[in-house]
């Protein structure tokens, strides 16, 4: 078996105490381990406050990890600093929950999609326009969206733009933080189908965080259930869904408690 693309070992994330004499809060993420093989999709499920977002933010290096280790592509991910981290981050595409917040209100779609290309060092010009148009059409939007701004789009369209941006640099890993929670149910399905297509086409690995089990069951190979900062259950998606072992997962999946 080859080394996993993303490997997290005993990760602990703890936020700072609020006041000077306040007690340190319990860890938001407590000794969580996970492995994401190349090309696989791992769904992380949990209700609000389960630590799934903190786990994600720690993996994205937006909050510091208290202890534990993360390797991405075989390299130590937590030791990267400054410009190294900046470049390494381009190997991960991120789609956030609300596209209207994650797309700059002042830039056109063309500018938004050019931004990662410019960050990589590409030169602006006709090539870049063609590239952004291609990204957009791959995500199901025609090129006449390029001069528009995010606020003129519907939620589903805006989320397609966000996905196109996440794919711009050909990432090895796509991280999705509740990507469908802000959308209508019918649009959710369209976005999920788009993600499945993209996964099939590019062999993308995905880390998919959501509180909505129906969404994640549809798309995941592996599933991990989090509760109060800890992993309650993990395994192949079908088996976790079909026969959750832990009471918490059972409740989350809508099973009645065992008699």
């Amino acid at each position, binding site marked *: 078996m080859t080394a996993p693309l993303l490997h997290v070992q005993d990760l602990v994330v703890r936020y700072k105490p609020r006041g000077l004499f306040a007690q340190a809060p319990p860890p938001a993420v407590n000794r969580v381990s996970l492995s994401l093989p190349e090309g696989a999709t791992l769904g992380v499920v949990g209700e609000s406050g389960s630590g799934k977002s903190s786990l994600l933010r720690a993996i994205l290096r937006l909050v510091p990890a208290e202890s534990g280790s993360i390797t991405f592509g075989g390299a130590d991910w937590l030791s990267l600093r400054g410009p190294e981290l900046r470049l390494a981050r381009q190997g991960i595409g991120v789609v956030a929950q609300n596209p209207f917040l*994650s797309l700059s209100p002042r830039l056109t779609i063309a500018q938004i999609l050019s931004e990662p290309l410019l*960050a990589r060092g590409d030169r602006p010009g006709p090539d870049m326009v063609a590239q952004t148009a291609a990204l957009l059409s791959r995500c199901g939007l025609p090129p006449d969206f390029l001069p528009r701004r995010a606020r003129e789009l519907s939620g589903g369209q805006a989320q397609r733009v966000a996905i196109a941006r996440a794919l711009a640099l050909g990432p090895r890993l796509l991280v999705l933080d509740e990507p469908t929670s802000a959308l209508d149910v019918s649009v959710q399905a369209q976005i999920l189908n788009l993600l499945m297509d993209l996964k099939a086409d590019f062999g993308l690995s995905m880390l998919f965080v959501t509180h909505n089990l129906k969404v994640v069951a549809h798309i995941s190979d592996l599933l991990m259930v989090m509760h109060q900062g800890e992993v309650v259950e993990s395994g192949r998606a079908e088996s976790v869904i079909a026969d959750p072992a832990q009471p918490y997962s059972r409740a989350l999946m809508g099973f009645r408690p065992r008699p």
Partner: protein
Amino acid sequence: MSVLRRLGLGGSLGLAVILTFALLAVAAPLLAPYPGQGMGDPNVTAKLTPPSAEFWLGTDHLGRDLLSRVIYGTRVSMSAGLMIVAVSLLVGLPVGLLAGYFGGWVDEALMRVTDVFLAFPALLLAVLMAAALGPGLLNSIVAVSVTWWPWYARMARAEVLVLRGQPYVEAARLMGVSHPRILIRHILPGAARPLLVQAALDFGPALLTASALSFLGLGVLPPTADWGKMVDEGRKFFPDRWWVSTAPGVAIFLLALAFSVLGDALRGREGGKRDDPS
């Protein structure tokens, strides 16, 4: 005229007054009845004459036509106000951006320096600076700017602190966009608008402070016409020859009021409007 409708009656009037003064400043040699006197030539045969058909606003102690002096003074006052606000923005905005964006010791260092400047009463510090630098228009602009920029630094910092946590700024970081580019491309456009509104509001007070400095004899050198200085000169003849101080005084009052009203109109329309993505 959608701009005027958005400004409302007061704002439109303010804008009209400002544009009138701007026109006076630009076209002073054409509009002043006695351009030579406006620039300082004495006219000893007509000392301190009251307003008349010949001298609409009267003449000063050197017999110079006050209307021409006021028109030429517009140039000094407008450029002083503009320069003070521009220099202060140019210093304060980058300081606030850096402090707010990088946080930590950068923030501490920059904001403590800013606090030192804020600790002094503004006019006192300006007077000290102007006295140290010596009189002159440029020096008085520098002196007032020194007391002015910290406010912009604070405002810019506060705006950045809000914007820095926005998901779209975070998204830029996650794409590997460099710090300078995030600041300039993703944060500055959002932070700049409320600051520009504030700058428009501050134009009037800046102009007043500059006039106060020249009233105290720390501004422009004679024979250049300057409103603050003219009020000071007229003080000796007040109230018997009231028109000498009144003409420039009313000009200061009108222009400062116009900026204040326009700024209020701008703030009402734009200032409270942050990025509202929904």
